[in-house]
């Protein structure tokens, strides 16, 4: 058993970490907003933690706080993400559908170029030697695990309480939602900022986990990967992001024995998932369960 964790511990923690990014896209999707901005906030959150963890000027603070420096880094990333999320969200969420997606992709690029040119972020090399919170990588589950449970709780609770209906109303029909007294812009921004905050804190936890942090953490490729977690896992189930992250993170590992042909098979599995499970894995399971129990039910 301990051998299993030694081999796969890093993989498991990575799945949870990536599932967090998937969930951060799931929040704005609850209000019908397709945003790819998460990875930009993830990158910024990581830089906040990397700078706070390594900058010489903060050495006395780190001495004084010890392990509590890590929660302080999360808090820093959280505050920055919320402020920036509101500042970006209000103008960007006036755009709809594909235009919003494009605007958020542009935001990710802006963040990327900005950090590459900020001396404090270490340029292209980035920041390395970020202090570790734990000896073993597996122990980082104590960071990501509780955050994941918290995020899952938020998604579940919002979906089950009266106030959460406003998000879904905006998703279903903005115009009708407004006519029914729902503050359309306010709800879009709230859902968006929840996602930004989650991505930012995930970044702050990831910087020590990965030991180094640079602009490669916040690329367009990474944004699309996060979106794929949600689409492949299922965008209407709270388990969708975890499912998608588990599949997409572990697939290349599981196929490793196949050597070079594994990336081809990897691609085939993903295309097949898109074609045969348009509602994602969770959507497919729900449909299957409905069929087995012999009645049409809602997902």
């Amino acid at each position, binding site marked *: 058993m301990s051998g299993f964790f030694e081999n796969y511990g890093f993989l498991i923690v990575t799945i949870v970490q990536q599932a967090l990014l998937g969930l951060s896209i799931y929040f704005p999707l609850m209000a019908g907003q397709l945003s790819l901005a998460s990875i930009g906030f993830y990158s910024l959150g990581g830089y906040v933690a990397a700078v706070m963890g390594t900058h010489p000027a903060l050495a006395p603070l780190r001495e004084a706080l010890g392990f509590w420096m890590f929660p302080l880094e999360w808090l820093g990333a959280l505050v920055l993400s919320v402020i920036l999320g509101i500042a970006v969200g209000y103008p960007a969420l006036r755009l709809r559908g594909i235009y919003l997606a494009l605007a958020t992709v542009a935001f990710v690029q802006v963040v990327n170029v900005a950090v590459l040119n900020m001396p404090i972020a270490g340029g292209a090399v980035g920041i390395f030697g970020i202090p570790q919170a734990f000896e073993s990588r597996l122990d980082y589950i104590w960071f990501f695990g509780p955050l994941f449970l918290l995020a899952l709780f*938020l998604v579940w*609770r*919002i979906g089950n*309480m*009266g*106030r*959460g*209906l*406003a998000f*879904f*109303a905006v*998703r*279903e*029909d903005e*115009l*009708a*939602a*407004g*006519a*029914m*007294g*729902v*503050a*359309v812009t306010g709800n879009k921004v*709230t859902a968006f900022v929840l996602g930004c905050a989650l991505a930012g804190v995930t970044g702050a936890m990831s910087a020590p986990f990965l030991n180094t942090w640079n602009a490669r953490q916040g690329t367009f490729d990474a944004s699309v990967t996060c979106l794929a977690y949600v689409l492949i896992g299922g965008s209407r189930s709270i388990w969708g992001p975890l499912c998608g992250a588990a599949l997409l993170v572990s697939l290349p590992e599981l196929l490793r024995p196949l050597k070079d042909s594994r990336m081809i098979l990897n691609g085939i599995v993903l295309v097949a998932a898109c074609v045969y499970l348009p509602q994602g894995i969770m959507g497919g399971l729900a449909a299957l369960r409905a069929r087995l129990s012999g009645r049409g039910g*809602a997902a």
Partner: protein
Amino acid sequence: MSALLQATDLRRRFGGLMAVCDVSIEVRPGEIMGLIGPNGAGKTTFFNLLTGMTRADSGTVVFDGHDVTRAKPEAIARLGLARTFQNIRLFGGLTLMDNVRVAGRVQARHGLLSGLCFTPGSRREDEAVTEKAFDLLRLVGLEDRADHLAASLPYGDRRRLEIARALALSPRLLLLDEPAAGLNPSEKLGLADFIRAIKERFDLTVLLIEHNVPMVMGLCDRVMVLNFGQMIAVGAPEDVQRDPGVIEAYLGGDAHGAA
């Protein structure tokens, strides 16, 4: 005495087309007012102007003492102005119950945080909203399908659900955009009685767009007529029906057949 809704010189143009041209009207508390006019006369645009969904080029709208000319739709809805849509806009992916609950939360005071913390206040509020939504579903006869998705409803039932949803706002003024469109004859007959009943029960003022002349004549206290964006007549149904301008513009030959 004083008007519940007052539109003054309301105007809206789409490119070269004058959709609503300097329309002024007062809707008095407690009346059922009809709005008729040929296709493309600007009736729906007039509703959109009143509810903040289309910006007026000029003119003002005062509802219940508030100038709402530039207000957002949600702010107007919260003041107690509810509407239905000509082309029915339900929240298709939500249950019937949730469709009504969305609107029922219009006066809710407990927000995201207190809901996330399971405060007793937010729970009581959710329960009250649910109970009221169930009553409204029963009123329109859809309570047995409360947990079905709105998208699964047949056409006539969608119209009824949309009215229930509008009523959940506890409105003072209800705007109905062609509520009888697409209903079968027996449903149409029932509709006039239903509108009268909800008007009494909820102390409503109603403004409704309708093409069905006998229904308008039997139901409405007053009727206003739009043609090419202009209001060409307003008054008691009998007077409007006899107005030569109206006969020419709209009622035309089939007025005799209908009356």
